[in-house]
């Protein structure tokens, strides 16, 4: 019961921060709202018993990606963005019924659907060993190829980000006298 209350508090914080992300005008405030939402989602992961994903959410999202966003917001001068409008009003109002349709669809699925609840053959191992050990064991045995492919994708993304984001004036081609 207490776990459900904590889950509700974190969900409320996440939803309020998400409303802040899509409504606030100043990009710095939006970064702060995003950081709050990410930390709340990490709290949801911890209450669900997924410690490894929660810790990686805190480490990767709430530290690395948030710092990167703050860096880019400080690199791009946003005084012009403060002068102009920060939202497309017409498109936002038009996109609201689509999202409401999604919510209604979720309600229909909950009312008509059949709830499947299998035994969960891994739950015994989770209760014996702890969550992070089980996730690590499955990750490095069954999904090892996918893990390596993700590492390759990270490497390619890093090289691409460096190549795209560098300054063109710093190429040393016409340096010869």
């Amino acid at each position, binding site marked *: 019961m207490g776990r*459900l209350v904590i889950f*509700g508090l974190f969900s409320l914080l996440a939803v309020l921060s998400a409303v802040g992300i899509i409504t606030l005008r100043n*990009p710095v405030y*939006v970064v702060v709202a995003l950081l709050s939402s990410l930390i709340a989602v990490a709290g949801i992961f911890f209450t669900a018993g997924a410690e490894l994903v929660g810790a*990686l959410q805190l480490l990767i999202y709430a530290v690395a990606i948030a710092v990167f966003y703050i860096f*880019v917001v400080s690199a791009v001068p946003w005084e012009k963005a403060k002068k*102009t409008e920060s939202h497309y009003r017409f498109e936002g109002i038009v996109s609201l019924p689509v*999202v409401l349709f999604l919510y209604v669809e979720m309600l229909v699925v909950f009312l008509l659907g059949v709830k499947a609840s299998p035994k969960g053959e891994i739950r015994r191992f989770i209760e014996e060993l702890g969550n992070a050990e089980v996730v690590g064991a499955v*990750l490095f045995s069954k999904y090892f190829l996918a893990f390596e492919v993700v590492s390759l*994708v990270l490497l390619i993304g890093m090289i691409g980000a460096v190549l795209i984001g560098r300054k063109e004036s710093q190429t040393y081609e016409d340096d010869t006298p």
Partner: protein
Amino acid sequence: MKTIPLEAFLVVSMILFGLGVVGIVARRNLITVLMSLELTLNAVNIALVGADHHLGAAEGQIFALFVIALAATEAAVGLGIIIAIFRLKRVDSTDEIREMRG
């Protein structure tokens, strides 16, 4: 062990996903569009971890880890593209980049 119902996770995930989609559509600044995209990825992660909590499996958390890693890559490449666009054209709004319209 299992005290939070699956519906709670799915409701939170769906609400966050819808808000992120509205942000992607309605935001004008490129950086805030990318931040709304991060919000939708987080919503998908909540659904995966909640299903894992319900089923007693470990695959959902592994997929959530993959989503987090790919979101890091996407943020790096996307922000690099935004910086390149800003350096080339001095714009940071999505309706000012219309050379490839057609």
